[in-house]
């Protein structure tokens, strides 16, 4: 079912439609929150907060194709708020969480799945080494698949800047992957 129709049902109080809506977008929201926080537990809490916020503001969710960019925008805002709070009051523990890659169920054989998980883990580490703006552009454009204008609106920068920065960020990421032995 398409998100606009789902939203219509959710607004009428259909709990099954809300569950379908949550299952439709929770992976995207959790993935984005994980890339910002690098902590699976923090990303889960943030994802919950984002969906609670969506549920409380159902009238504000755009009906048409702007639904996903709107969700990504409020997820990004929630993540940035969380990172600011964490910077002000850092947690007692700050372990790198790699369990994200173990949670996904794949149809590959174990060896391929392990190699894929290693590649994704290296890619994630290379992403963490990018500058903030480059990482955000990669997150929004290459990972979440948003358009240049939507990204420019979210980051509040001109479209031309997003385009040029995007190529530069991809090259920087490729250079880091090459240095890590993932080129070719």
């Amino acid at each position, binding site marked *: 079912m398409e998100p606009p129709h789902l939203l219509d049902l959710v*607004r009428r*109080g259909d*709990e099954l439609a*809300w*569950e379908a809506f*949550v*299952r439709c977008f*929770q*992976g*995207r929201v*959790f*993935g*984005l929150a*994980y*890339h910002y926080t690098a902590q*699976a537990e923090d*990303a*889960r809490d943030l*994802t*919950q907060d984002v*969906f*609670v916020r969506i*549920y*409380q503001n*159902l009238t504000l969710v755009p009906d048409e194709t702007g639904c996903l960019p709107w969700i990504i925008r409020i997820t990004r805002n929630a993540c940035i708020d969380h990172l600011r709070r964490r910077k002000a009051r850092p947690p007692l523990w700050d372990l790198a969480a790699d369990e*994200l890659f173990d*949670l*996904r*169920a794949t149809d590959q054989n174990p060896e391929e799945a392990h190699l894929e998980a290693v*590649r*994704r883990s290296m*890619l*994630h580490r290379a992403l963490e080494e990018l500058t903030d703006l480059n990482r955000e552009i*990669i997150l929004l454009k*290459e*990972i*979440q*698949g948003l358009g240049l204008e939507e990204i420019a609106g979210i980051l509040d920068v001109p479209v031309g800047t997003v385009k040029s920065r*995007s*190529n530069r960020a*991809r*090259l920087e*990421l*490729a*250079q880091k*992957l*090459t240095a890590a032995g*993932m*080129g*070719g």
Partner: protein
Amino acid sequence: MDAPHRPPFTPEVPLDLTQAILARTSGSPCQRLQDQACAYVDGELDDSRASLVQAHLAHCPACAALVGALHTSQRLLPTLADADPGPWFTQRLLRATVHRPATSTWWRLMHRPRIALEAAYLGAAAGLLGTYLPMPNLPLKVPAMVQPLGASAQRVVGQVIQVERRASTSLRQSWQPRPAAPASPSLWQRIKARLRRWLPFFRQAAPRPAAVPEKAPPPANP
């Protein structure tokens, strides 16, 4: 008679010859390739430009590795968009949302944690204000709910009502505008009054001019 077929002369080209020539002419083309690498990976280059890039990649392992990494990231990055938050995540999330009714702004406003404190404050303020307002001057009438209690109870309630009325009446009188008090004299007026009071003293104390002796009449001629 045909000449014997000879293979064409293909001398062994040293690997670094091209690099040496480029170094002495246009410089390394790797920077130019990096400018076009993303467009090449995205398939946005036309055929002639793409063949030039491929020809460079065939001889430049560093650029080939870079383009390979671009291909790898292009393939893997979209798979990072969707992550599994865990087996019980959806159930927890639905518990956190579905049992809450879709709420309006007014509903959320009334369910803030401090709403009880604010309501108590407003109630106390309204009570105080009501206590200080004057009671209307109505004829004494004991409420009907007290009448079955007997004469003594009616007397007590009547006294309470009278006390309340007296208090409110005195309060109302205290709110009546008072006659305007005479304006206090200004500083200059006070100084002038002081001076006026001291003026006789100054007049008495001031030294009088010495009296001029009257000339004695000239002696008469003898």
